[in-house]
């Protein structure tokens, strides 16, 4: 979801916590997870303790620093299982994308990258099976996906040529995988 009005979301979540923080009773009938007619992938009632935190695995300062931008020159544009930011490297703007698909897989990501006709290089990042993908982009856009808790990925899309986007994406992945230690 787009980042605009996220402040409202945080306020709504905060008030939800305040209201329910001490309550132990919940109305309704207990049901086993996955039971009923609701497909498990569409169950809004499920608890999501990490709601809105998925984008915070690395702080914005670290993101900015990794792509050569001032820590104050970065802004989030989209949050959720896919997160997007834009940072200002002195050479030009850089878009950063992170994804985390908890029931996804590295194999499925590789299959999609192949269908998109990206150049693919299998490699290990911080000891984790990964691949680097490069579209035919004049500004050198580059992505990396790793086999971790489903599948995790980073993309770096500079708006000007000459930056080491693959190096930046791999660095972000190394930092992400390090937080799991």
């Amino acid at each position, binding site marked *: *979801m*787009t980042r*605009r*009005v*996220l402040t409202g*979301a945080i306020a*709504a979540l905060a008030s939800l*916590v*305040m209201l329910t*923080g*001490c309550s132990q009773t919940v109305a309704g009938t207990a049901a086993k997870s996955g039971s009923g007619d609701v*497909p*498990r*992938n*569409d*169950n*809004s*009632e*499920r608890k*999501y303790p*990490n*709601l809105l935190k998925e984008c915070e695995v690395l702080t914005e300062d670290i993101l900015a620093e990794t792509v050569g931008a001032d820590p104050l020159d970065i*802004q989030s*544009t*989209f949050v*959720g*299982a*896919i997160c*997007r930011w*834009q940072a200002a490297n002195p050479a030009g*703007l850089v*878009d950063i*994308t992170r*994804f*985390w*698909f*908890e*029931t*996804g*897989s590295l194999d*499925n*990501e590789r299959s*999609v*990258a192949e269908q*998109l006709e*990206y150049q693919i290089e299998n490699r290990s990042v911080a000891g984790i099976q990964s691949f680097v*993908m490069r*579209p035919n*982009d004049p500004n050198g*856009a580059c992505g990396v*996906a790793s086999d971790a*808790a*489903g*599948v995790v*990925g980073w*993309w770096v*899309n500079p*708006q000007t040529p000459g930056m080491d986007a693959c190096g930046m994406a791999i660095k972000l992945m190394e930092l992400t995988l390090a*937080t*799991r230690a």
Partner: protein
Amino acid sequence: MIPVLGACSDSEPTGPVVPSTEAPQQSVSHGPFFPECGGISDETIAQLTEVPGLVNTAKTSVGCQWLSGGSILGPHFSFSWFRGSPIGRERKTMELSRTSVEDINIEGHDGFIGINEDPDPKIGVNLCEVGIQFNDDFIEWSISYAQPPFPDACEVAKELTRQSIVNSK
């Protein structure tokens, strides 16, 4: 908020920032293949959103983002393709933060449509997001305007979603 939580020592511990449990891998069923940007060209985005000077700033394996002049200061439009991620979580986020979220069906596929309405009636519904489920995958179009005048954001989101579904393989 912290004192309230502190008073309830028997409440559920808050979850870690990084999900710590390995995801269950049983019977994950992925949906169709969507071409880059959902198969939507920069020209189609410009025509449907009625915003000039858009730049596709983040063309990736998980979607695309179009920004006015390439900068985040202005309208935001994006396509996102989630592969093995619960649409329910995305919907819940919207239910907690948007003016309204409702069910929708586009081209025979179910999902949600969420809007945000600016308190200023001169601005009105400035944001519309449509998410459509395909087994354990989903796609989402996000249409967010900055300054009026602009066309009906939900009509733009629904048409882009429809075209993306038609473009899927």
